[in-house]
């Protein structure tokens, strides 16, 4: 900032003042300005990307996932600039009209330009925060495609692979990649004939072995880089256990405890409750679930419903399934919940 801001403001011709400031800039500053000018070009070329060299792609990821952009804009920009999806496909993936997605993208591009969001890999001290923003966007894309939108999930895995190629020594990148591969390995078993199949009922012969192997090797790489695991690495370790023939639910519970300490997230606590239930104590799991404040989070209600059902509290289970059904967002989830509900009717005399 100028040494005397008010004096700077008083100067009659603002542009002349700015020119003056520019004259005083060092050569390094001038180079920085030049780089800014290039940002404009790069973001305009967003539509004909793909040939961009590795180094430029990495910068582009950080630009697209800058925290000064709204999350949905980060997601859309990342998919458009680095994924292989057209604006129409992204719009379809997120259930918005193509025009809306077009506006969202051009607004985001305009903000990058006007606000001066840098086209660069962030400085070391910013890197941990910025990298976790990038990983969050990739994971969000993956989750969007978790049940019904396999194309989005594949796109997220592609982005994860790209990141792992571009930054070879970040354990959390491998952790996220492993997590996505391991979850995706169960895709064919998770939704069958349009209906969600819970883990315990999945046909393991439908698991994609190659993806499980790739996921486990990414997990191994992450752990080799840093033995103290971050949140994605822990989740990948959980997913790896869940790909086993006989799942060690006690071990899964321990990992969720660890993850909960790291993130303080009630959603993680909810998952820990599921692990506790699978390890054999539905009662203790329900106690934990009911202590959580998760409002209208749909999996809170479906988990609670399932636990009530296992404990034979059918009336309450039905109510909870009904609420979960109202909150469900994909057809496969709806079909599964509707089936559970229909199973609860005949067994009840009231």
């Amino acid at each position, binding site marked *: *900032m*100028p040494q005397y*801001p*008010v004096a*700077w*403001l*008083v*100067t*009659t011709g*603002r*542009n002349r003042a*700015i020119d003056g*400031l520019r004259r005083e800039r060092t050569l390094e*500053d001038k180079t*920085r*300005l030049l780089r*800014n000018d290039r940002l404009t070009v790069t973001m305009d070329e967003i539509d004909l990307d793909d040939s961009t060299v590795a180094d430029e792609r990495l910068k582009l990821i950080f630009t697209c996932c*800058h*925290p*000064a*952009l*709204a999350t949905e*804009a980060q997601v859309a920009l990342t998919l458009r600039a680095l994924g292989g999806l057209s604006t129409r496909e992204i719009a379809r993936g997120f259930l918005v009209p193509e025009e809306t997605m077009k506006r969202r993208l051009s*607004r985001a591009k*305009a*903000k990058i330009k*006007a*606000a*001066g*969001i*840098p086209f*660069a890999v*962030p*400085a070391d001290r*910013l890197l941990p925060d910025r990298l976790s923003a990038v990983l969050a966007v990739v994971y969000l894309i993956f989750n969007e495609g978790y049940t019904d939108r396999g194309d989005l999930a594949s796109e997220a895995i592609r982005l994860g692979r790209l990141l792992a190629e571009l930054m070879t020594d970040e354990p959390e990148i491998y952790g996220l990649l492993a997590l996505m591969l391991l979850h995706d390995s169960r895709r064919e078993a998770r939704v069958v004939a349009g209906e969600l199949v819970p883990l315990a009922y999945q046909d393991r012969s439908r698991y994609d072995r190659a993806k499980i192997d790739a996921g486990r090797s990414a997990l191994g790489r992450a752990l080799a880089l840093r033995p103290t695991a971050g949140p994605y690495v822990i989740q990948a370790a959980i997913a790896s256990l869940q790909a086993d023939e006989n799942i060690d639910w006690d071990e899964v519970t321990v990992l969720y405890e660890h993850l909960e300490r790291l993130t303080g997230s009630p959603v993680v606590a909810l998952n820990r409750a599921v692990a506790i239930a699978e390890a054999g104590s539905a009662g203790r799991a329900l106690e934990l679930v009911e202590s959580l404040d998760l409002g209208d989070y749909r999996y809170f209600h479906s988990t609670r419903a399932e636990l009530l059902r296992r404990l034979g509290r059918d009336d309450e289970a039905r109510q909870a399934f009904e609420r979960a059904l109202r909150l469900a967002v994909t057809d496969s989830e709806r079909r599964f919940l509707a089936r559970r509900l229909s199973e609860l009717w005949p067994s009840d005399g009231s």
Partner: protein
Amino acid sequence: MNAAYLALRDDPRCLGGAHLQPAETATTIRDNLGETLITDGPFADTKEVLGGYYVLDASDLDEALEFAQRIPAIRLGGAVEIRPLVVIPAEDAF
């Protein structure tokens, strides 16, 4: 229009001013339990009042954010909005 703005600027009582870019270009910084929260968009809580401003010369948004994050008001429950200025430039066209 332009002439009217020029006349205002030439009024000796006018000490300065700048044309802000539209609100869509704003970025807001807040404190969330000790962590800096950076979000897209302007600071819109009308119950609050504007308490001051800095005019800053930064080479990009990260540099502006770094400066803005040092403003103590953020730690006291306030928010800081960063808004680019319109640098007009007759000859410096797009």
